[in-house]
């Protein structure tokens, strides 16, 4: 039982970080970023390059990942999403653009980093063994703690910084935010960069544990979509809740349902459908339509 909880927390913290980035972009621009998983993979490869090929410390890898992904995010917003949103009449255009960007990032990752699975050496040795109730390697604990720390930092940033307040205001009432003097373009770009940065950071964190490969992008995006559907799209607390719930369900599923084969995600999806039928706006989302 304790083991399941610990695993769930560890998974959930990373999931929540990914979902936070996705939901931030969604709430500011009503864009579903299909390329989120690819950004995550990109971040993982950057950390790998910095740590393994350049031989710099892990923390430097994280910083470089965060920085590069933020720049990529800002560029994508400025030169791709902004003009398309301005010109298009329907929301499918941004969805297609996001799909195109996902393909593009896949191609870039393939060309720069190749197809091979990459990993960085363990950043910490040893295993915590608490009476055989919880067994967890120290590096996992460290990564889990780091992820939770980042979530807290993100919440604090959104809550108490001027930029964070501006983004929350934009998400809640675009017109009123404009009337307060918030420059929509500028904060959409900052928000997109921040969302991409979070994806990159998670990639950097996870490359130490599971390694990273090209094929992980799509499935990661899909998990992130599930999380924000559970929690409610565009709501920060919803993304965190969704992340931890999915992490927990996965952890429970892998233990309890293992005897029936690999059906965890089937069960999760079936429950998600039933849940959405009852509450289409997710746990904390605003009702719409």
């Amino acid at each position: 039982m304790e083991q399941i909880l610990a695993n769930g927390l560890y998974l959930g913290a990373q999931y929540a970080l990914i979902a936070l980035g996705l939901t931030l972009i969604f709430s500011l621009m009503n864009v579903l970023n299909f390329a989120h998983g690819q950004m995550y993979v990109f971040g993982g490869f950057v950390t790998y390059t910095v740590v393994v090929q350049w031989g710099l410390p892990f923390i430097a890898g994280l910083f470089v990942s965060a920085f590069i992904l933020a720049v990529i995010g800002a560029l994508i917003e400025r030169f791709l999403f902004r003009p398309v949103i301005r010109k298009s009449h329907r929301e499918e255009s941004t969805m297609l653009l996001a799909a195109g960007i996902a393909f593009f990032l896949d191609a870039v990752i393939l060309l720069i980093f190749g197809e091979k699975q990459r990993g960085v050496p363990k950043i910490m040795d040893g295993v915590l063994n608490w009476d055989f109730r919880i067994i967890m390697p120290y590096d996992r604990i460290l990564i889990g703690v780091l992820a939770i720390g980042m979530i807290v930092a993100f919440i604090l940033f959104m809550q108490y910084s001027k930029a964070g307040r501006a983004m929350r205001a934009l998400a809640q009432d675009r017109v009123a935010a404009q009337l307060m003097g918030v420059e929509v373009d500028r904060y959409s770009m900052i928000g997109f960069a921040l969302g991409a940065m979070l994806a990159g950071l998670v990639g950097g964190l996870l490359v130490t544990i599971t390694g990273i490969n090209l094929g992980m992008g799509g499935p990661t995006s899909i998990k992130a979509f599930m999380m924000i559907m559970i929690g409610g799209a565009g709501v920060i607390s919803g993304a965190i809740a969704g992340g931890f719930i999915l992490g927990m369900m996965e952890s429970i599923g892998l233990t309890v349902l293992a005897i029936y084969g690999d059906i965890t995600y089937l069960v999760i999806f079936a429950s998600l459908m039933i849940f959405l039928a009852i509450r289409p706006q997710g746990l904390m989302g605003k009702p719409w339509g």
Partner: protein
Amino acid sequence: MNIKKLFGVILFLLLVLVVVPWLIAKSGRWDFYYTLTSVSLLSIASAGVWLTFYIGRINIGQGAYALAGGYVAAVLVSKYGINFWLTIPLAGLFCAALSVLIGLPILRLRGVYFAMVTLVLTEVMRLAALALPVTNGAKGITSIPLPQELSVFGFTVIPDFSTLANTKLAFYLTSVVLMVICYFVLWRIVNSRLGHLCRSLQQNEELSASIGVNTAYLRVIAYSISSFFGGVAGSMFVAISQSIYPSSFQVTDSVNFMLNCFLGGLGYVFGPMLGTLVLYFGWDLLFTAGRYQLLIYSTLLIALILLLPNGILSMGIFNRKKTRS
């Protein structure tokens, strides 16, 4: 149907059933058969996606139904020895029934939310194929026999494929015929009252309800027809490749079906056919670019969306067609 349209249809049939095989025989590019067969089958699946666009829903889950349809055909043929031709409608019906179950809750969602769920659906179908015992897991179902003879009242309509010298041509012809049938059905739907009601739904669901349309029912009907097409396409693929794996239809395929529709134009029944042809051929032609294939392809795609964010049909010359179709 007026004379002009009838003429157009006959011309099209001549082109795909006579001229194309003749050209291929002349040029000796037998590999084009495979490409064109794929195009016609993929365009059937895309036609389904197009129909969900027609009721105002962005469907990125068609891969799920193509996969399901494929497995239905594979299982029925290889485990129960049912004639392949019979499994095509069965696969379609299975997918339609499945989509009613899935559609009832999720069709209440709109816009991005519906799109998200359908995308997840594709991935879940893959996982289901991996996990369920009947699908044989990751090993897939292989060595599926070629289609048997189809006879009606003792009269052979389609000969046994294993006796044919040129199965490529046979698959091409049957796929094209299947595509023509599907598009005829789609065309009939769009130009009958059902299509008009779908359009009313796409443009304004509330108004549609206020003129007495049972919107929930109509959405499920349209979605199940859409999934039927997906299942049909998937089952035919199985006959050609004689195998199916959980990875036969993936998220990328679902996204591509959506791209086909968008590229061909959402206001035009034959749009998805055109879109599939352009995208598939474009992808094939870029094969020579080797490792830069995906890069060029996606760059072109992004450029296209940047230039024409409202679809190819937003270009001036197509606008007339859109209003009159």
